[in-house]
């Protein structure tokens, strides 16, 4: 089973990296850009099956370690179960 965790800066938190990347994209000719946010992806490979228990554990680990809830949001996708 493969799990992809997406961690992104919260909407209301300044994202200096996103701003800089947005400027670079505009300078390369991208028109109409309304926003750019830079986050990260954590890919996990786990033996076992999707279950409510697994999701509860993932939520806890995302809150405690993989994201910082003060500044970031997370979501994840589970594939191959």
């Amino acid at each position, binding site marked *: 089973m493969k799990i992809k965790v997406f961690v992104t800066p919260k909407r209301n938190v300044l994202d200096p990296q996103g701003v800089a990347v947005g400027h670079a994209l505009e300078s390369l000719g991208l028109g109409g850009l309304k926003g750019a946010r830079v986050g990260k992806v954590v890919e996990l490979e786990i033996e076992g099956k999707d279950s409510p228990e697994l999701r509860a554990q993932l939520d806890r680990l995302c809150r405690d*370690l993989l994201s910082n809830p003060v500044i970031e949001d997370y979501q994840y996708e589970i594939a191959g179960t």
Partner: protein
Amino acid sequence: MKGAAIKIAVLQFPGSNCDQDAFHLFSTGLGLPTRYVWHKETRLGEADLVVIPGGFSYGDYLRCGAIARFSPVMGAARDYAERGGVVLGICNGFQILCEAGLLPGALIRNSSLEFRCLTCDLAVSDAGPAFNTRTLGTRIRLPIGHGEGNYRIDEAGRERLETNRQILLRYTDNPNGSLGAIAGVRNEEGNVFGMMPHPDRAFERFHPSMDGLKVARAILSLRFPEVSRKSA
């Protein structure tokens, strides 16, 4: 200096690089018995102040301080802080304390995206009995050196900081985009302190300032009132 019984513990993580600076601030600068505590230790031993130094603990992987937070020694530091022990986090130490939830807020990439390394003018706030303009004066100068010192907190949290007088220092010329130019905060209880500027790089005559001694004394004076700035 008087009060030689005051014992200092400096935590060390893989990637700490200001551990020796912090050690010398308290040992050479203030003449206090100081020792290191390795990140794998589950006990701090006898300590009147625990210092979490600057650096790049665990390579700053994931987020600054995110991994250090779960180290065995941070478990001990958390217990120590919850029992009222005094903790000072400098730079990466501040980031670790925020990640651990021992201090409010978080530190993100500098708004300039640059690593900023310079000596800053800082306005001292009245942040309780130890850390205030009486113990420190209204302005101090301390070096900074960081890429992620941009302090962030939500509006409700910021109001709490102001109401409870938890802000320690503000940059007079904001180098990193911090909300409210905040350079350091304490917890609500008043025993955990964190700041991006480096008192540990400001205590020798050849340093750009010697105000690090004032900061160290102010924090020690919380539990040891005899450690005033007069005993400089």
